[in-house]
């Protein structure tokens, strides 16, 4: 089936199989490998992308369902080779260890800050409920988001 999508501002038209997930489409058809597969069943959030403004687990969305959609992936964060404020904050706060969960974490955080520019610690934790970090680095991630939202005393 032929689908049209816009990924990080660029239009793509591809012929895809019905059983291809959006995750595989992004990685294998578009070649953007920042989006990761963790559990593959919608629990860990490593495959999080922003689909029409909302975060989704791309491992449990079909590519054909995304026909006509606007998609943002982690590759859309940096502009002209410069990291976004949020990415910088993750970097500065050591919110990255192995890095596998980071693309999803950043996109969940980005969506949170768009809807709620000054989230409380509790709201940050709730927003990251669907993103697992197995290096146990949550504290640094929370601090990175607090800093990016201008809420950290220095």
């Amino acid at each position, binding site marked *: *089936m032929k689908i049209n999508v816009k990924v990080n501002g660029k239009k793509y038209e591809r012929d895809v*199989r*019905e*059983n*291809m*997930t959006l995750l595989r489409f992004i990685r294998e058809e578009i070649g953007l490998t920042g989006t990761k597969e963790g559990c*593959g*069943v*919608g*629990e860990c*959030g490593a495959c*999080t992308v922003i689909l029409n403004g*909302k*975060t*989704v*687990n791309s*491992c*449990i*969305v*079909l590519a*054909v*369902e995304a026909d006509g959609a606007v998609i943002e992936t982690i590759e859309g964060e940096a502009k002209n080779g410069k990291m976004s404020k949020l990415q910088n904050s993750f970097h500065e706060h050591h919110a990255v260890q192995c890095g596998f969960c980071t693309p999803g974490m950043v996109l*969940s955080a980005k*969506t949170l800050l768009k809807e709620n520019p000054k989230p409380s610690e509790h709201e940050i934790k*709730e*927003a990251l*409920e*669907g*993103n697992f970090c197995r290096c146990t680095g949550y504290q640094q991630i929370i601090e990175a988001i607090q800093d990016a939202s201008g809420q950290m005393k220095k």
Partner: protein
Amino acid sequence: MLKEFSYLAPKNKTQLLKLLAEHTGKPGVGKTAKILAGGTDILVNIRNGFDKTDLLIDIKKIGEYSKLDFNKTKGLLIGANVTYIQLINNKNVKKHYPVLIETAGKVGSPQLRNRGTIIGNICTASPAADMSRSLLCLGAEVNIVSIKGSRSMKLKDFFKGVKKTALKAGEIVESITIPIDMADAKYGDEKLKRIKGHDLAQAAVSIVKKDKVLRVAISSCAIVPVLLKDFKSNVSSATVCKEALKSISPIDDIRASKDYRIHMVKTYIKRIMDKI
């Protein structure tokens, strides 16, 4: 990699009902079709090899199924495409049926709430379905349609067993109606789980109270979510607990023991009734 299947996305109800009639899964009658709305259950089941569906019918292009309408005499209508997040963000739901928001907020994670649908939660018919408790308390009716016509039934009659519903081949739940009589009720909801997000409830209780009626629903404690008979609003929590224990049949499993579930149901009933 997901198994192979076909995919169709009808643009209106007429096309949909025709497709459902053509693909009932009976031997020699088309393919085994299932509805695809949010996909947060069915695509997981396909990936895990539990679901052998060979045709997915995506209903998201059917505009009228996205309705989420409140009417002061008829109550609330929730269409088949309404997601948890749409329900949570709806002003009328917030004002008149906050218990729905309370239970919708307890489903999965933001990613799942952005995608999953209320009616999908009901049609998956897990004994732990979070939406079942609030919807049962509010007296929800399920509106079913097929090419042959339409019918409605109380949600409590819709659940037939673990992941079994009253739906017949060729039918779809197109909406849920919530009558006005329980609008603006006092409410409470408690769910026992190991972690917030990504965990099935081990036991959960919703209670709503309005005028002279108090209504209690319990999930994860029987093969279907359980609605107790209506109580008078001045009933004691001891009476409600006694009635609850007669109606539930919790099991011992990897998540919790039967005794623990019973203990928590009683605790939650008392806790909520003290509050409302």
